[in-house]
């Protein structure tokens, strides 16, 4: 009887410890259903948020300073010209089920990630050159990871590698992050509870996280999300539309914040694929750098920022946002809006304006169709403005809004489109964008998977991107990528329009929020967030 009572008491204590007081629950919305809870298979934003909150990583990119910081690894050393990295692991760390964390877990995680049968999205990032990544476990607290070729992304890539347990009794449910998945109701919510074995403590030695649980409510409608925030049902929104931000800002007592331009860009590009089923004369327009530059000059980016993004965006000079402090080429400025200069440039390229319509040298009226995905009012407004701006230089634009799969089908498979407007969501390091900038890349937007570079400038971009990928000298990499940005600004294969600001709001209960422009903007320091009762 005494033994049973003791077990009950211990269980209650454990429950109280792991769940935390009910009023320290942080509530926020996910915009979509998480597609997976396996941290190695994450591809969507909701799953990524859950991975960030539940997983432990060897190093963490500090979202505020953009510097890599120790996490489960206390130190690391890059050796053999960038082919090898040695990690010293943090001692005494335990998974949420109590099993110890060792170098064997790191080796197991890397083996799983590079296994082609697992289809881990992060696996591509680990494949450099011929051959595969090897690990050497030197002791329970030290491991070497050896790459077949010099790898520029060290150690940043380990920010996304969630360590999974090799031998934990709870299997892969055991986590190293501040929270663990406690409950999931499809279409309703994901409940995360505090990990009782989380390794980090605050400066005073108190265990982190402060919050007892995080309830992630699945809510696609942004207006309903705002309504729930106003009612106090959720505590924060990390990605507000400009209109909603302007509406909530006056009543938020300074808790709605414009964190400045994010890493994302809104871009549009002309289809330069020779396989495209579009007339030959249109292909000649789209492969003309002068035509593309004129179009860029004919678009009023300042008005786009002011009207569509209501002042919460900055004109884009190129695909790299000024928020990416380490990699942006600050010497490049956005094209100034000048219909006169655009017209002059077009005339030099053989076009002529007649009766308000632009004609090419063969007498074809310049008419282009611009596609984008349905359901994004900001993009639809941007296209309406582009239509009116380009009409001033005689170009007639037909706007076509399609469902998202149709857009992807056209830009990646059939190439049956003329111009496309979409957002670009890059990571910080250019190494992660190889698939986009290399002419052979599947995601090379204007002409995917070229067998050989179609132009001299694309060949130069290929050379520079490969050079920076194989170099571990940060200055040399930056110089190479600066030149890439310069070429892109001169050639305008992708006309970058704006970098939207990161707009967010926190409720009155939340303490220690430190908004950042990199995902997850409000949750990156989740272990230090506090929720007032």
């Amino acid at each position: 009887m005494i033994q049973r009572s003791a077990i009950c008491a211990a269980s209650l204590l454990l429950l109280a410890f792991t769940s935390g007081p009910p009023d320290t629950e942080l509530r926020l919305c996910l915009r979509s259903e998480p597609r997976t809870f396996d941290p190695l298979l994450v591809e969507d934003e909701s799953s990524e948020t859950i991975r960030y909150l539940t997983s432990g990583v060897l190093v963490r990119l500090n979202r505020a300073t953009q510097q890599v910081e120790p996490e489960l690894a206390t130190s690391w050393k890059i050796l053999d010209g960038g082919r090898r990295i040695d990690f010293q692991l943090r001692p005494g760390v335990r998974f949420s089920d109590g099993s110890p964390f060792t170098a064997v877990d790191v080796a197991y995680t890397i083996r799983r990630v590079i296994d082609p049968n697992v289809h881990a999205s992060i696996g591509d990032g680990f494949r450099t050159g011929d051959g595969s990544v090897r690990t050497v476990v030197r002791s329970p607290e030290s491991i070497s990871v050896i790459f077949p070729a010099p790898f520029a992304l060290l150690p940043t890539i380990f920010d996304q590698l969630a360590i999974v347990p090799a031998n934990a009794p709870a299997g892969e449910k055991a986590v190293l992050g501040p929270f663990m998945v406690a409950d999931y109701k499809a279409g309703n919510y994901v409940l995360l509870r505090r990990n009782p074995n989380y390794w980090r403590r605050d400066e005073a030695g108190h265990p982190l996280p402060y919050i007892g649980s995080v309830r992630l409510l699945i809510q696609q409608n942004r207006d309903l999300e705002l309504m729930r925030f106003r009612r106090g049902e959720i505590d924060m929104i990390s990605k507000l539309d400009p209109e909603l931000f302007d509406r909530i800002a006056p009543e938020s007592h300074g808790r709605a914040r414009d964190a400045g331009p994010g890493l994302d860009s809104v871009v549009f590009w002309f289809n330069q694929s020779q396989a495209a089923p579009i007339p030959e004369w249109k292909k000649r327009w789209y492969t003309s750098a002068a035509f593309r530059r004129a179009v860029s000059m004919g678009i009023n980016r300042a008005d786009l920022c002011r009207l569509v993004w209501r002042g919460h965006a900055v004109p884009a000079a190129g695909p790299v946002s000024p928020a990416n402090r380490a990699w942006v080429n600050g010497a490049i400025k956005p094209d100034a809006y000048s219909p006169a200069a655009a017209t002059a440039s077009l005339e030099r390229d053989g076009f002529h304006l007649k009766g308000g319509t632009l004609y090419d040298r063969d007498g074809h009226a310049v008419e282009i169709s611009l596609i984008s995905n349905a359901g994004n009012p900001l993009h639809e407004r941007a296209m309406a403005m582009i239509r009116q701006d380009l009409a001033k230089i005689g170009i007639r634009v037909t706007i076509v809004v399609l469902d998202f799969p149709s857009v992807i089908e056209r830009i990646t498979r059939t190439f049956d489109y003329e111009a496309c407007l979409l957002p670009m969501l890059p990571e910080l390091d250019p190494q992660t964008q190889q698939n986009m900038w290399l002419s052979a890349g599947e995601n090379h937007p204007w002409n995917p998977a070229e067998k050989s570079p179609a132009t001299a400038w694309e060949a130069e971009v290929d050379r520079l991107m490969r050079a920076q990928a194989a170099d571990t000298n940060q200055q040399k990499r930056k110089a190479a990528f600066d030149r890439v940005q310069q070429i892109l600004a001169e050639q305008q294969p992708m006309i970058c329009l704006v970098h939207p600001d990161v707009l967010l709001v926190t409720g009155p209960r939340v303490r220690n929020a430190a908004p950042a422009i990199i995902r997850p903007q409000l949750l990156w320091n989740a272990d230090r967030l506090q929720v007032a009762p």
Partner: protein
Amino acid sequence: MNRWIRRTALVLLALLAIAAVVSLWLPGSAAVQYRDAIDAVPSARFPLGTDELGRDRLAQLLCGIRISFLLAPAAALFSTLIAALIGGTAGWCGGRIEWLFMVVADVFVSLPWLFLLITVRAILPLDVSAAVSIVVTFLLLGILGWAAPARVVRARARAIRQSEYVLYARACGAGRARLFVRQLIPDLRSILAAQFWICLPVYVISEANLGLLGLGVTDPLVSLGGMVRALQSQTAFFARPWILAPAAVLVLAPACLHFARLGEDRAS
């Protein structure tokens, strides 16, 4: 009282029609962006204010009325004619023809029309103008919408075929073709009119639904559905009630059609 309501409904419909047509000759366009006057409140220059890109809301509303209330009746007429042909033939002939036609109707009723519309929209050539695109959309609505009215027409046609007066006419030597023209078509006229009036608001709302999904009319044209999208920001209309105008028209016009039809039915 009913007559008064019907007259009011007819007057309102006439006013909407006149405004939509007269606006064709007014200066300015629904697509012109007055970028120095965004989100303007109602004024003499812009009686319904402007939207977030500085487009005149009144001009947009009139353009939306023109598109929605010219193309929706055309689509409704198209549906009704197909329903008359298929439902009337099925009910009048009976037997295997009736069975076959009704199987086809069942298939059409069970089609996921929204996905079909999205698919057709996706395979349209990209350089077709916004006007052609919206005509195709309404045409599809018309083509897809005949099945339900056809069932009603079929039931009525069968009842006529089995009626005593038709039996008497046949006994007197009247041929099938003569009966079809002299008996069936006049008898179906009221039911076809009713189906037309039922289809009309359905198609207006269907286009609005496509507009809500962002797959309706695109710039430079505008539809009522597209304008109603602005109301998705559910609290915006407390601050700017005039943006409710397209929603009001969307409710008012079908209601007026209903009352006008109600009066017509009673008169007949």
